[in-house]
C-alpha cells in the first residue's frame, strides 16, 4: 500500500509569513496525527483527528496554528504568522483506527526553516 504522503519536503520562510503543509494518509486510515519535531527532540503531538473531527488539540498553539481535515481524508496544517521557534520537522502519521492493535504509519515530514 502507498505510504503517508507529505508536501512540501522543505520550506524556508521569513518570520511573520504564513505557511501550509499537506498530508495524504493511507487510504482507509481514519485516525490522523500531526507532530512537531524540533531539532534534537522527539516528536510532540500537535493535533489528532478521528475522521474529520478533532480528538485532541490541547498542544496546538491556536493563536497561530490551525489544522483541518476535509472529508476525513487529506489534512492541512497552517502556521500564521510564523515565529523563529516554529523551525522544526512537521510529521504526519495515520492509523486505520483508534483500536489498540493498529500500527502507526509516518510520512517523511516537512522541514520548516523560519529565518
Amino acid at each position, binding site marked *: 500500500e502507498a*505510504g503517508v504522503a507529505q508536501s512540501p519536503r522543505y520550506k524556508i520562510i521569513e518570520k511573520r509569513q504564513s505557511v501550509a503543509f499537506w498530508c495524504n494518509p493511507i487510504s482507509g486510515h481514519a*485516525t490522523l*496525527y500531526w507532530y512537531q519535531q524540533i531539532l*534534537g*527532540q*522527539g*516528536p*510532540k*503531538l500537535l493535533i*489528532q483527528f478521528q475522521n474529520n473531527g478533532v*480528538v*485532541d488539540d*490541547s498542544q496546538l498553539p491556536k493563536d497561530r496554528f490551525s489544522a483541518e481535515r476535509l472529508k476525513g481524508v487529506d489534512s492541512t496544517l497552517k502556521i500564521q504568522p510564523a515565529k523563529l521557534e516554529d523551525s522544526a*520537522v512537521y*510529521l504526519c*502519521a495515520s*492509523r486505520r483506527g*483508534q483500536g*489498540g492493535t493498529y*500500527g*502507526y504509519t*509516518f*510520512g*517523511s*515530514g516537512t*522541514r520548516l526553516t523560519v529565518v
Partner: protein
Amino acid sequence: AQTVTQSQPEMSVQEAETVTLSCTYDTSESDYYLFWYKQPPSRQMILVIRQEAYKQQNATENRFSVNFQKAAKSFSLKISDSQLGDAAMYFCAYRSKITSGAGSYQLTFGKGTKLSVIP
C-alpha cells in the same frame, strides 16, 4: 502525564557488535504499550519493536530485542550483529491505553539516541 527519558544522546557501535540503548518512563497506568522507532535521515519513523505492558515476555524481532523491566519502568533496546544500515536516530515511545477523548492512542516520545555504526 507520561514522560519518556532517553539518557544517551549518542552511542556508537562497531559493525557486527552488540549495543544497548536505554529508556525509562514514568506512568501511573498499569497497562500500556512501549515502542522503539528508528528515524533515518529520510525522517520517516519506522517501527522497530513493540511491547505490551501486561506481557512479561520480552519482545524480539530478528536482531532486535528488548529488556522490559516493568517495576523499574525501564525499556532498553538491544541490537545484535549491528549493521551499517542500523545507523539512525532511535526513539523510545509510550502509548496509553486510554480509549477515547484527549490522550487516546497518543504516542509520547523520548528525545532520542543517535546511533553510529563504525565499519
